[in-house]
């Protein structure tokens, strides 16, 4: 029984490239999630429940719906997303797998971007299921390319800062209640821009009403990505 490789090529332990490392983390998260489906199903069910509750709480009727659809959708995404973010980082922390990740010879930001992209994919998957269901339930057409662009941009900004803060939250004693308290005040500007842009697209307003919000969304994404990239190291180091 030999530990050294018996294959012809000797084992060479090198460091993977940045993209290889990001890819490995994303693939790991997807494989794990498609096996258990606990994160996606929880997010999806929660999203449905939120929509259901809004229906009764706001007595959504045909006329009012058009104007508040954007708001209802984004609140749903934000709540469901928060659930997913918490779970995604808890999986890493519970069995201390985060240590396993940090032991790899890769830049810490590769781990961050891997987790962030996986979280983004989970969120987009849930949104892709929720959108048609909402369309059917309320008989509105949500398949507007502009709206889809806004959803992608908004979700990207949300998981960017969400992954960073969720990593902090899982270290805390109060982790489950902490994430929304940390996250929501910080994402308010992003959320406002996303809701406004979505609403403008849904009401078929001309682009001059959309651009300010869209520009803001892009700026937020850039700022959030830059800040997270620069600070993630400080969160996971000890």
């Amino acid at each position, binding site marked *: 029984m030999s530990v050294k490789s018996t294959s012809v090529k000797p084992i060479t332990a090198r460091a993977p490239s940045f993209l290889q490392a990001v890819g490995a983390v994303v693939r790991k998260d997807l494989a794990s999630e498609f096996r258990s489906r606990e994160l996606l199903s929880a997010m999806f069910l929660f999203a449905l429940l939120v929509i259901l509750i809004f229906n009764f709480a706001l007595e959504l009727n045909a006329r009012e719906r058009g104007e508040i659809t954007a708001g209802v959708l984004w609140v749903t995404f934000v709540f469901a997303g928060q659930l997913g973010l918490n779970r995604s980082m808890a999986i890493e922390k519970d069995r201390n797998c985060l240590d396993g990740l940090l032991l790899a010879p890769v830049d810490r930001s590769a781990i961050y971007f891997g987790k962030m992209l996986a979280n983004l994919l989970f969120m987009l998957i849930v949104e892709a299921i929720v959108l048609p269901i909402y369309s059917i339930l309320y008989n509105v057409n949500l398949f507007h390319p502009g709206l889809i662009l806004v959803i992608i941009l908004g979700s990207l900004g949300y998981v960017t800062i969400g992954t960073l803060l969720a990593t902090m939250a899982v270290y805390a004693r109060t982790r489950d209640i902490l994430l929304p308290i940390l996250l929501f005040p910080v994402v308010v500007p992003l959320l406002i821009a996303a809701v406004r842009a979505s609403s403008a697209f849904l009401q078929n307003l001309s682009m001059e009403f959309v651009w300010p919000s869209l520009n803001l969304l892009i700026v937020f994404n850039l700022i959030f990505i830059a800040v997270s990239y620069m600070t993630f190291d400080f*969160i996971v180091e000890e």
Partner: protein
Amino acid sequence: METKPRLLTILDWSSIILFLFATGMVFIYAPMEAVLGNVQRVFYFHVAAGWVGMVALGVAVVAAIAYLRTSDRKWDIIGLASIEIGLVFSFINIISGAIWARPIWNTWWTWDPRLVTATIMELIYLAYLMLRQGIEDPDRRARFGAVYAIVGFLSVPLSFFSIRIWRTIHPTVVGSSDAGAEGAFDMTPRMLQTFFFSLFVFTIIGIDLIWHRIRLGRLEDDVEQRKMQVMA
């Protein structure tokens, strides 16, 4: 144990005297505003408190960046001190604003950009304190606090802009109650003097309180260290 610095004692007394003086100016020296009446006098301390509340967050961010660069506990103590003092002043700012708004806007509260931004700032201050409370390891607590102070600091102006842009483009809101428009007034020279004096006085009070809080943090550390020496 370090003794209280003389400069701090001087600052204490000047804070008290200046504050009494500023109060006098607000109520006696400054003239009554013709349209808004006496309630306008809230404005001087209202803006001054808001100013200190905002600057404190700025100080906390500078301390946060310094902490992340040096890992020197001193910066963590300064950061926490300014967040706590900033929280109190922002709260005074919000409450005094509501007192002003009730007679002028005929409501305690509106969702105007400034008000929402102030609220978000207050929530970020509170979230910062909750985050710290949940973390046992002091180094980690300091690092997380620093990172959150930076993230929160960025989101405050962003909130302001995103609400403003929306207000100015949204078709149903344009032309209706603009915050600046309703309840605006021109300041007479005496009002201006009172205004700037209040800003100055509140800045002094803010510095004084933050200094006290920093000193308290250092004393806490000192006690902790002595405790460990006894136990070791």
